[in-house]
């Protein structure tokens, strides 16, 4: 029964910024008589959907949370000792509240404007240092999507850096099964083979370009890989170790064993299992291979005053620059979770982490000793947290008895000729749990209780020469913040340095920085969503099943696709999975020679990078001066490659923010040559409720749930990139070893069947609270807001592209290139001056160099949008002063931006303009001023002098804090 307040003020009115009065005023400015007229002038008529979205009526926030509780109650969060890469862990409450539940951290964008991202960049440096130290390698990146894909990235990296022409990669059979499956999927598309076997017996180092070992093994055993690693090195092959970070506090690290690369997950550093995610995965390597690293890398540099400052380093490896030659297609990663893991390490320090590891190791030892006393055949001898027990015919009985007492053990039906169960202890495993496990094996509660007292002195058994002797986490940051008060203040200090959505609009084109509503976020930390193991029995995850089914149905209704896979956990991963589906489809029809992927020149860098990973060859299609696909060029290239054409990748509306009139014709051309149409869903925010990709020609495409559907950006992840397909591609969606009834032709692309499942709660609740009407209104206002900005700014900064009626879609591009000639002003200068006005700059130089792409989203109010336009116009006036010779080209408000409070306080202010002009330009209030902590950062210095771990203490003290 809707309450008074919910009918008066439905959630949609909280999500959407402009009021009805604002909307009227904005319509007048853009010169449209009504929203319908604006839409008719913006979207081509022939792609409009014929009917409104059929979705259940909108729920209020209270009703939605009640629904979430009902669905949560269908999940049973048992004690899962399944292991296999996912473990119970305790997120310290102070970190939960102040990072995971804090919009200052979760609404932040990727740190491409480093001056306003120093807080999260420092947390990422801490993360990288933590990983480098623990793995004993020199350089680690700022997170990857999950352990299995990190292993696949390491395989690709090994191929890049090994100086051989070999195409075989060896994987030890003790790797996690999902890792082996993802490796095979990745290798197959690139024409490599994965040999799985026992590295001590089956590895022929002269035949492979690299090998991966699991440490400890998935079934628990800790083995010494130094010999196979030495053999690989002697044969110019690369060794990769997938290592458990917590175990590395006790074990000799991969670097000291001679490994070239280490990968793994940071999940057990405080991040709940979340039914598969999100978690930060890591990759680390030797300094010599740093340029081959995938993903983002936080680095240390200096600002214009020589103060230490952080930034993203070596971006030239990444897809937005190298495109199909990038080290990887990865874009969105898992930054928020890396930040959480880094704070866990800061809070516990090396002694705390080691103590947790020792306790786990001891718990496992007690467990093992008890099972041995019970007469069980434990096959693990040297272990950290995991043991495997040969139970033969009793397997089901043991599993059932454990389940009846609330415990999930790992089901290993067939292992070296017998049946086993696996048991992994973790930070949450209590003595009570161990006793219950013994009872599952036939012990009585009374004997179990006695035994746990008797065995209290049992010790873990790690061979002396594999015990860690080297120090780690020696940097002061891992020692200084051990009281809750100190950690709280540290996290607050870092957050205060950053500009996130909780402070002002972030008008980044194509990022869709819309509201991440609190109600959507709240259920994430409920135990019924947070504490489910991804491989727990499906009967315990009926809440998730229900939620995923409902969200899938909603997304199908919105897009017109026939089937959805939630496995990919980023847009780029979705592209990769979607293209694999296309490839498999062609192969199934005897057309496996179709390997050409047409990609417009304006496409986002992930497109060609993903195509390359899916084993396709990229042919670039030209765009004309209007920024649209040159249809004649497309026709010619499609014809020229007709019998080898696999697909086209299009973005719609285009990356230029225009609804190209010829989209149907473009799809038809490709279809006529038996190619498939992949639609990049990054710009879906301009279509929801108005047009459906599958209706106007798309066969497959991803959705960015962290754009259109409110999952927060987190500073660079988590994301979710599910793909939708038309029915003919459904059999080629990615399968997963844990889903034997699912698709089975294409292997998995992620470690967990539903990617980062727990954050699916967010789009699910968003859609429930908006319903079809609200979603359509959101799209409409997103388009209105963008057109309003375009109208207000066009007289000052020419609009680069417009549609047929002079309209833009949900984003617009303004051209700053003339200002280079007239005033010596670059896009960077404007972006940094916007910081002085309290804004994050729009997207710089994508898709066109020297431009700004502006996307307000529907969540921004007219007040905030006007504040942004006013700032941009004021900056244009500042530029005019330079053009007219009143200000110097090399010393002005823009060139010296951003200005810091330290500069303001300096007695010797020697700028040719006033302090007020610099720091409090028109519209900037003294009481809500955002101060960037550093001046403009020297990017060249940072890439020429690469430092990616915590700088030494002396530098700490030198920069005035």
């Amino acid at each position, binding site marked *: 029964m809707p309450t008074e307040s919910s009918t008066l003020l439905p959630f949609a009115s909280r999500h959407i910024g402009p009021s009805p009065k604002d909307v009227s005023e904005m319509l007048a400015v853009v010169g449209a008589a009504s929203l319908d007229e604006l839409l008719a002038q913006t979207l081509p008529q022939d792609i409009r959907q014929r009917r409104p979205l059929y979705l259940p009526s909108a729920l209020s926030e209270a009703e939605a949370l009640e629904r979430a509780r009902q669905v949560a109650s269908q999940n049973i969060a048992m004690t899962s000792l399944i292991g296999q890469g996912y473990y119970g862990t305790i997120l310290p409450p102070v970190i939960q509240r102040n990072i995971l539940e804090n919009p200052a951290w979760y609404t932040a964008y990727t740190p491409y404007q480093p001056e306003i991202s120093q807080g999260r960049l420092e947390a990422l440096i801490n993360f990288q240092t933590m990983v480098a130290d623990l793995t004993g390698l020199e350089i680690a990146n700022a997170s990857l999507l999950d352990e299995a894909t990190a292993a696949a990235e390491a395989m690709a990296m090994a191929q890049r850096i090994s100086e051989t022409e070999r195409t075989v990669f060896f994987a030890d059979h003790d790797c996690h099964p999902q890792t082996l499956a993802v490796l095979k999927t990745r290798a197959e598309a690139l024409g490599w083979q994965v040999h799985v076997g026992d590295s001590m017996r089956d590895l022929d180092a002269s035949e492979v370009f690299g090998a991966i070992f699991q440490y400890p093994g998935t079934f628990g055993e800790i083995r010494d890989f130094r010999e196979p690693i030495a053999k690989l090195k002697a044969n110019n092959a690369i060794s990769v170790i997938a290592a458990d970070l917590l175990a590395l506090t006790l074990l000799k690290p991969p670097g000291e064993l001679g490994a070239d690369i280490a990968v793994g997950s940071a999940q057990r550093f405080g991040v709940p299992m979340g039914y598969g995610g999100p978690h930060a995965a890591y990759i680390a390597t030797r300094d010599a291979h740093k340029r081959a690293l995938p993903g983002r890398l936080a680095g240390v540099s200096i600002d214009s005053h020589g103060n230490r400052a952080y930034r993203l380093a070596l971006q030239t490896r990444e897809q937005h620059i*190298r495109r199909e*030659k990038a080290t990887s297609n990865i874009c969105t990663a898992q930054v928020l979770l890396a930040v959480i893991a880094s704070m866990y390490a800061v809070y516990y320090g090396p002694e705390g982490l080691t103590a947790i590891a020792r306790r786990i190791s001891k718990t496992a030892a007690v467990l093992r000793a008890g099972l041995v006393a019970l007469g069980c055949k434990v096959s693990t001898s040297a272990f950290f947290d995991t043991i495997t027990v040969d139970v033969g015919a009793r397997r089901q009985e043991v599993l059932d008895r454990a389940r009846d007492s609330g415990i999930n053990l790992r089901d290993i039906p067939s292992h070296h000729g017998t049946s086993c169960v696996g048991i992994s202890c973790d930070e949450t495993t209590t003595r009570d749990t161990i006793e219950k496990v013994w009872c599952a094996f036939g012990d009585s509660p009374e004997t179990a209780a006695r035994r746990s007292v008797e065995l209290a002195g049992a010790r873990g058994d790690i061979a002396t020469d594999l015990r860690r002797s080297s120090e780690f986490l020696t940097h002061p940051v891992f020692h200084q913040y051990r009281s809750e008060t100190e950690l709280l203040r540290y996290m607050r200090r870092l957050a205060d340095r950053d500009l996130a959505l909780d402070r002002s609009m972030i008008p980044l084109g194509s990022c869709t920085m819309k509201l991440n509503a609190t109600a959507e976020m709240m259920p994430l930390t409920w135990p019924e969503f947070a504490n489910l193991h991804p491989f727990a029995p499906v009967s315990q995850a009926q809440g998730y099943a229900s939620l995923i089914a409902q969200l899938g149905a909603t997304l199908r209704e919105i897009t017109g696709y026939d089937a959805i896979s939630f496995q990919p956990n980023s847009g780029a991963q979705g592209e990769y999975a979607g293209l694999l589906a296309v490839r498999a489809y062609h192969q199934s029809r005897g057309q496996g020679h179709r390997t050409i992927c047409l990609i417009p020149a304006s496409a986002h860098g992930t497109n060609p990078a993903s195509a390359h990973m899916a084993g396709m060859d990229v042919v670039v299609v030209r765009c004309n001066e209007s920024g649209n696909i040159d249809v004649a060029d497309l026709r010619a290239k499609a014809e020229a490659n007709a019998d080898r054409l696999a697909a086209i990748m299009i973005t719609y509306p285009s990356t230029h923010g225009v609804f190209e009139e010829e989209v149907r014709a473009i799809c038809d051309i490709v279809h006529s040559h038996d190619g498939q149409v992949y639609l990049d869903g990054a710009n879906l925010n301009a279509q929801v409720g108005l047009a459906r990709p599958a209706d106007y020609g798309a066969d497959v495409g991803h959705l960015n749930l962290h754009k259109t559907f409110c999952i927060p950006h987190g500073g660079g992840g988590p994301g979710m990139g599910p793909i939708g397909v038309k029915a003919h591609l459904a059999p080629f969606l990615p399968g997963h070893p844990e889903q034997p009834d699912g698709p089975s032709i294409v292997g998995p692309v992620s470690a967990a069947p539903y990617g980062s499942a727990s954050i699916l709660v967010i789009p699910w609740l968003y859609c429930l609270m908006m319903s079809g009407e609200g979603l359509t209104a959101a799209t409409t206002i997103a388009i209105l807001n963008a057109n309003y900005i375009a109208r207000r700014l066009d007289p000052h900064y020419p609009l680069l592209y417009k549609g047929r009626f002079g309209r833009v879609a949900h984003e617009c591009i303004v051209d700053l290139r003339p200002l280079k000639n007239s005033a010596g002003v670059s896009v960077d200068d404007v972006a940094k001056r916007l910081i002085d006005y309290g804004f994050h700059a729009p997207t710089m130089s994508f898709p066109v160099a020297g431009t700004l792409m502006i996307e307000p989203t529907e969540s921004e109010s007219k007040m905030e949008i006007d504040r942004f336009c006013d700032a941009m116009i004021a900056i244009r006036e500042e530029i005019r002063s330079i053009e007219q010779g009143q200000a110097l080209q090399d010393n002005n408000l823009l060139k010296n931006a951003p200005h810091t409070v330290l500069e303001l306080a300096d007695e010797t202010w020697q700028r040719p303009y006033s302090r007020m002009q610099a720091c409090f330009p028109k519209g900037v209030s003294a009481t809500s001023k955002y101060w960037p902590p550093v001046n403009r950062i020297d990017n060249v210095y940072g890439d*020429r002098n690469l430092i990616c771990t915590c700088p030494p203490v002396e530098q700490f003290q030198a920069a005035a804090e």
Partner: protein
Amino acid sequence: MLKFTSDHEWILVENDSATVGITQYAQEQLGDVVFVDLPKSGASFEAGAAAVVVESVKAASDVYSPITGEIVDVNQEVADNPSLVNSDPMGKGWLFKMKIADQSQLDKLMDEQAYRALIAGAPHA
């Protein structure tokens, strides 16, 4: 003899060996160079094959071998100090030396005048 390619490489020919680098225009377009990925001595390249990658903070540019030949020397100084490519692209910022396999390929390249005409018409970012 000094010749140029339409991809903004220069090649200085002395008998049957040549020195190759990128032009002033190219280094301006790239911005500050932070890294140069040089080939190994002994590697062979066909005319038009990518031999070097020059990276700035915002771009990574392939440098193509103007002619077919074998690399006999690479400029270690540039590897250690990439900014030489910006400060002295035609001199100290040379990238590699190679043995010329086929002298006739040089005829297809532009002379200085033709190259100047090319960049006069080219857009500056």
